[in-house]
């Protein structure tokens, strides 16, 4: 396949500071300040595997090069945020360093590169998935068909957010998209697997939540006492495996 660079940004070089008059589609990438201690590289404005692949490739480049003295690098759907210490490095120095990294992204980024797959066993329906029947009714298919569709896709982890270890997953079959609850539940058990519009996700910790809960996993997803606390990490894929009962 052709390099993403040429697919997404016909005029790649030079990486410009933000040009307000540029037409949509040529605005990215752009490098802008997020205050005096962070710099933001926007790679797009949509949820798309191509943009996500660029985000993770750039994140790795910046981390590997240690551009920001090892401070945090935060990848999202569409951008990479790089924290730095203004006592150590000025904005213009950081701007040049980050632009250098963006320019090194010339290699084609393989969208379908072999992302690690994390398997999550799920008990669908019943007490574990009180909204499975709603989702089935809404989709006008059987509960088994919902389970088959939901577990039949490997979901790309675009980013984590909302709460510790909560993955934003892409790739839900549109046939089982379902509206959120009108009134969120006060307490959703840890491990609950839910659907909200065309998103699906899993709640690592118990808490309030408004997603339609179709199942639950008993696999621990987030452990604050571990140095690698989250089972699901960015730049991976998640596969839900239907099981009859919890281990």
């Amino acid at each position, binding site marked *: 396949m052709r390099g993403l660079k040429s697919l997404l940004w016909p005029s790649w070089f030079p990486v410009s500071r*933000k040009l*307000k008059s540029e037409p949509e589609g040529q605005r990215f990438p752009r490098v*802008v*300040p*997020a*205050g*005096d*201690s*962070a710099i*933001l590289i*926007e790679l797009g*404005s*949509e*949820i798309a595997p191509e943009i996500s692949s660029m985000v993770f490739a750039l994140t790795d480049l910046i981390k590997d090069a240690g551009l920001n003295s090892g*401070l*945090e*690098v*935060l*990848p*999202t*759907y*569409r*951008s990479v*945020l790089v*924290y730095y210490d*203004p*006592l150590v490095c*000025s*904005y*213009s120095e950081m701007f040049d360093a980050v632009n250098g990294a963006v320019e090194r992204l010339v290699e084609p980024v393989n969208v379908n590169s072999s992302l690690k797959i994390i398997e999550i066993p799920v008990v669908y329906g019943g007490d574990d998935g009180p909204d499975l029947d709603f989702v089935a009714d809404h989709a006008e298919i059987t509960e088994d068909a919902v389970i088959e569709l939901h577990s039949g896709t490997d979901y790309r982890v675009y*980013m*984590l*957010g*909302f*709460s*510790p*270890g*909560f993955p*934003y997953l892409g790739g839900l079959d549109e046939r089982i998209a379902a509206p959120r609850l009108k009134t969120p539940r006060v307490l959703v058990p840890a491990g609950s697997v839910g659907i909200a519009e065309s998103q699906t996700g899993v709640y690592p*910790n118990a808490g309030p939540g408004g997603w339609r809960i179709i199942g639950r996993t008993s696999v621990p997803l*987030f452990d*604050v*006492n571990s140095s690698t*606390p*989250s089972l699901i*990490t*960015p730049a991976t894929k998640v596969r839900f495996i239907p099981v009859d009962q919890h281990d």
Partner: protein
Amino acid sequence: MTKTSDPSIQVVRCGFMALVQDQGRFGFQELGVSVSGAADKEALDVGNILVGNSPESAAIEVMLGDFEIEFMESMMFALTGAETEASLDDVPVGRNLSYKAHAGSRLSLSNVRQGLRAYISVQGGIDTPIILGSRSTHITSGIGGFEGRALQPGDVLKVGGSELGDEYSSRCWDGYESPTDELSIRVVLGPQDDEFSESGIETFLSSTYVVSDQSNRQGLRLEGSAIESRNGRFDIVSDAVVNGSIQVPGDGKPIILLSDRQTTGGYLKIATVASVDIPRLGQVSPGNRITFSVVSVEESQQLFIESQDRLSSSINDLVGDQFFLRVSDTDISVGTAVSGSAEIVILDGIAYPIIVDEFIPDE
């Protein structure tokens, strides 16, 4: 060197909310872990310096006063941040000073006169378990601090056994500026300022916003003129946010994100508060008024660098400027008068009230 063994303090009274906080939890934002940390980092920094702690030491952040602790061992402490009425046993305690408390002494905070959050720093720092690299409490996710929650009466907090050099003397900090009800906050525009119309930016920079009572450690919601976006849309595909990010949701009213913010947000961000002004937002109460002015990112960095220099240069050992008190016909060397009214003096690190019977001029 003097060393204390297994010192601790106990919470006696807790009116509103008190939390263990340090600089914050960094390194796990990409896993969705909020940074949290002290809302007024300047007050935390000052407190740590005053009691001889390293900058990463944890303190107690007390919202709205009404809080009391008992020192189980003798230790240095300092009170910084909001202006509170405070006393050690029955002796008034000043802010931005280090004191020595004896075992069994009680430090009591009553009303807040100005500001919102006071900080109690103790020698060695509050020693709750380090979770994901920090002792900060993040209430929403129940991570860190004392069992992941706000402090309650009866909680016993371990205090790190720090060593203070023999040369350590009481310190004061004179860089303090009183919190005000009307704040002028400097911002760096962006990262999405170009998604707002010119009149939207003009509205943002010319309006006075009032802090709503829907504000907390996650952020300050502001009431005031609605800000117009360029194409009427405010929602974006989620993007990273930082301390001081100013989001504008669909109602056009800005929200300033603070310590307990989530790691990402789905609204356009018109500007980001200059680091030098973020600690002041930790002292803001509902009803306070805020206006915004723009600085360049370079100016913002320079302001921050200067503030860090000022922080350390404003700390003074209370050894110079000694004066004498005549007590029972004996001259006693005493440290500096602590406040303008000299109602307290510090002698060998211990605070004493002054009750002037008779003033004898220096001969």
